């Protein structure tokens, strides 16, 4: 179901969707940046495309398709880079190859489905086609993300600052990594209507960097990053330019990055 531009509240649903997506990206971003998992989350963003395309064509919940292909490709990447390609260069090559292959497979599937799925709106977002189901999905994803962060906050902080020490202390490091990957997949698929799949990465990176550089705690960084994410949701500018929100948000993140480089580090709490 789409928003109806003829009603006076046509803007409400897309606006809420943009705010929720900004908040989701802002909360997930610092967790990914401190764990150096930005490339990994970009891989997930591309990996969900084949599953989402198939699910949409089959008329089932796209989140399920996205989770299936996102988890599958992540598993494959971890298998490939766990042994002979375990060094940084090997992992980078594995991630980027699978990322490109996932995008390629997604495009081929959408072509084969003969127009049933709109590739552009999947890749770059289309706020005006967002419906209540998209909003509900995003709200649930944000809720689950917040439950993960609140319930496991100390463990996530330990994992972020010292993963080896966390493993030695007996923390469930592997399970935490899996939960983070699952949450990332959920957030990316849930935000696709607002920002698209492949440009979502900008929303997880630049706001997070500002939050991390200026806050005295991870909690503070999550809050600041979420606020910035919501502010650059790109809703207004996207409408003004009559452009999909993904490219607008990605471009808005560049000044943020410059601001982040200029922002002073916070010293005392």
């Amino acid at each position: 179901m789409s928003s109806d531009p003829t009603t006076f509240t046509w803007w409400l649903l897309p606006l809420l969707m943009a705010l929720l997506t900004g908040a989701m990206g802002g909360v997930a971003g610092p967790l990914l940046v401190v764990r150096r998992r930005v490339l990994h989350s970009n891989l997930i963003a591309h990996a969900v495309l084949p599953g989402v395309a198939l699910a949409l064509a089959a008329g089932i919940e796209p989140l399920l398709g996205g989770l299936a292909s996102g988890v599958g490709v992540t598993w494959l990447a971890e298998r490939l880079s766990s042994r002979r390609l375990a060094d940084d260069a090997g992992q980078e090559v594995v991630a980027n190859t699978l990322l490109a292959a996932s995008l390629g497979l997604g495009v081929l599937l959408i072509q084969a489905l003969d127009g049933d799925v709109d590739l552009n709106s999947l890749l770059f977002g289309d706020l005006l086609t967002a419906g209540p189901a998209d909003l509900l999905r995003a709200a649930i994803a944000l809720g689950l993300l917040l439950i993960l962060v609140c319930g496991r906050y100390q463990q996530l902080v330990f994992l972020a600052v010292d993963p080896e020490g966390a493993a030695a202390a007996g923390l469930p490091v592997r399970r935490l990594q899996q939960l983070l990957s699952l949450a990332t997949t959920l957030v990316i698929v849930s935000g696709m209507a607002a920002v698209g799949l492949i440009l979502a990465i900008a929303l997880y990176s630049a706001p997070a960097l500002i939050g991390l550089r200026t806050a005295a705690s991870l909690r503070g960084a999550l809050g600041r990053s979420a606020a910035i994410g919501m502010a650059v949701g790109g809703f207004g500018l996207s409408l003004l330019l009559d452009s999909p929100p993904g490219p607008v948000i990605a471009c808005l993140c560049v000044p943020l990055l410059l601001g982040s480089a200029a922002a002073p580090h916070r010293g005392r709490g």
Partner: protein
Amino acid sequence: MLQVQGVSYRYPGKASPAVLADVSCSLGPGSLTALLGPNGAGKSTLLNLLLGQLTPSQGRLLWSGQPMAPRRPRLALVPQRSAIQWQMPITVRDLVALGTLAAPADEPRLAIAEALQSMGLASLADTRLSQLSGGQQQRALLARALVQKADLLLLDEPFTYLDPPTRQQLLAVLRQQACGGRIVLVSSHDWGDSLQGYDRALLLDTTLRADDRPDRVLERLQRP
């Protein structure tokens, strides 16, 4: 008592050479031991085996006479500097408080305050980790390890970039921990003056080349 019995390790793959070969030693409670060896000698591999991150290809690890895998001692690790995310927004107090995750204390605030005090960091408790000097950062990590109240305290190259007075200060704290009944094992490239602070030194170079008093191991190292 920690016992390493005939432990060998080689990375998966038919052609890979042994990183550790037939290493045996025992470490008792209250001991402060240096684990020495050049780069690639297998020091980090041995620590990873003790941490349960790797499984021996041969041999076994025992804790109080039982296999370590199911019967895991309480472990604390101070890793190499490169493993820490120093830019993480976290204060010294919050970093030290993470130790209570591994060992919930009756009075966590008191345990944290004592650890900060013993490492001379009380006045820096609310400072962000990234704002500390290298020596202060190392002391903050050690303070967290103290809060963990581990049976086995492992430190991987903890003295890198530290000046001699700071090394001596950290060694004194490690000595206190050993006196409290813990097993303290310190992996180090440094076989200079500070080696005298240990009870024992293990010299590793794939095999265990020496297991003796530090002065005797030093003599052996200085022989042409």
